[in-house]
């Protein structure tokens, strides 16, 4: 493989997202073992100033074009493909986020490069990149060897500490030309839509009782609300509960929902898919009730029980009410 490590910088509404720092921190370590440079790829419009918050990189390659002002799957993929082609790095680290999912697979096909997704770890072993992916809803990990001079790995947010990638100082900025494709796009950004405000701000709650698909029906929600009330907390949920419209979007914990750090996160009938874990793994105390003893939630919880939630919830509520 080639030596340089590239990190695709993700930014939204004028600030760099934490996942970028996570990748820069890891990228620094990997560049140490390949002896290459750590380079951040920044795409935007009038966003060169953001390079000042990418101090962990040796260099920032910046592509400027009006079509890059906001993320656009087509425009960003075209610009990234050109930068990678012109520089031949050894490894391109892309966040496995909503934006990154559009970029990594596009880069792989456009430039004919190997890709491994859902990575929670990346290492260099025997001259090859080795990526560990979290698959099957978090139940199984797969360690893949990637072969090629340039390879792509998309990394799940929260896999590495962000602190290691946060450094002051302005790295050298190299400007790269925007491809002609950007003047004639088939995908056009229209607007950002802010989340609606909700009745309860789950990020401000010290105690959350969180329900998942194990609850079976919205008719069973009052029982959970009663428990949350007895504990002095609020009810949050996994995504399927929100998709079923049983609770508002503002109650969703996870990748496409909110990140919460309560003192207690009591989860009922949640399997612990990586996208859910992303939103709650930093809770101080996690207690999980799930009848499947192999549910991934038990890898992240501090305490667990495989008893039926429909037995535990009333028993606990009754004891709390004393």
């Amino acid at each position, binding site marked *: 493989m080639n030596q340089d490590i590239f990190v695709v910088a993700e930014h939204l509404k004028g600030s760099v997202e934490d996942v970028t720092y996570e990748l820069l921190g890891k990228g620094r370590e990997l560049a140490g073992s390949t002896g290459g440079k750590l380079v951040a790829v920044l795409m935007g419009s009038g966003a060169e100033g953001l390079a000042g918050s990418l101090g962990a990189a040796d260099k920032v390659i910046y592509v400027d074009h009006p079509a890059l002002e906001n993320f*656009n799957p087509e425009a960003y993929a075209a610009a990234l493909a050109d930068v990678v082609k012109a520089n031949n790095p050894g490894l391109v680290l892309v966040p496995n986020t909503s934006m990154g999912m559009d970029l990594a697979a596009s880069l792989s096909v456009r430039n004919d490069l190997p890709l491994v997704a859902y990575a929670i770890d990346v290492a260099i072993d025997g001259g090859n990149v080795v990526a560990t992916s979290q698959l099957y809803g978090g139940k199984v990990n797969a360690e893949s060897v990637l072969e090629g001079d340039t390879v792509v790995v998309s990394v799940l947010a929260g896999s590495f500490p962000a602190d290691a990638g946060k450094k002051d100082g302005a790295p050298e900025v190299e400007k790269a030309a925007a491809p002609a494709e950007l003047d004639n796009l088939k995908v056009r950004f229209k607007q950002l839509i802010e989340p609606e405000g909700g009745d309860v701000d789950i990020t401000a709650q010290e105690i959350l009782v969180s329900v998942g698909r194990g609850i079976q029906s919205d008719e069973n929600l009052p029982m959970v609300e009663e428990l949350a009330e007895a504990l002095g907390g609020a009810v949050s949920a996994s*995504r399927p509960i929100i998709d079923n419209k049983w609770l508002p979007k503002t109650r969703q914990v996870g990748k496409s929902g909110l990140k919460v750090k309560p003192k207690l996160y009591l989860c009922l009938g949640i399997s612990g898919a990586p996208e859910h874990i992303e939103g709650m793994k930093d809770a101080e105390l996690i207690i999980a009730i799930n009848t499947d003893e192999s549910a991934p939630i038990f890898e992240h*919880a501090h305490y667990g029980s495989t008893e039926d939630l429909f037995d535990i919830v009333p028993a606990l509520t009754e004891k709390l009410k004393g």
Partner: protein
Amino acid sequence: MNIIVPIKMVPDLVDELEINEDGTDLDRDFLSYKLNEFDDHALEEALQLKEEGDATVTVIAFDGEETDKALFTAIAKGADNAVKITGDFEEGTASHVLAKALAEAIKDMDYDLILTGVQAADDRDGQVGVLLANYLGVPHVSVVSGVTLSGNTATVHKEYAGGMMAEFEVDLPAVLGIQAARETPRYAPVSRVRQIMRQAELEEVEVGDVDVNVGSEVRRMFTPEAGEGAEMIEGDAEEVADKILEILKEKGVR
């Protein structure tokens, strides 16, 4: 408006998943398969678009475990056509290979929109929808949870973190990776599925070997360490509830 929905069967995640003897894949002998849940959302969104306008919905899947049942179920739910891709594409085939083969099967079909599930539990080497769009050379947006059609464009909502969304306008034909349909995916009664199985025909398309560089190989598959897991509370519900209260007191949560 012709909408194609590629669907895929994945191992049922409620089961315990075991690793095979070489430690490089699942032990697939006793796995049960079910439809990838995001594909079910893609199908539902396609059916919703059909019901609000004038569209035909074609579902397409690789031959394999439970494929026929899934395709017939899709017809029972309202899809117009079902296509089965035959060839050498066993369970666990790399996403790049599946996407390239899908592109081969689809490229000569008349389509305006392809809706895939945003991801699947086993797409280690990338999401099939985005790969497919790139092989077909058409635009794509993934993590979509809202689609409106108007003439030759689609207006879509792509989800970011924290409930934030971005709206894009996309020229058709395009591929959209569906995160959630506007309504909960519908069920088809088992009796209706059985009836369809007797009446409907699956169209078959054969795809030969595809030439694509996956460039990565699994050298070790494993279940995450049990050691770093939760302390399990034993006992019946009453005992577990007592223990939970004790923990809460100890940690100062109560």
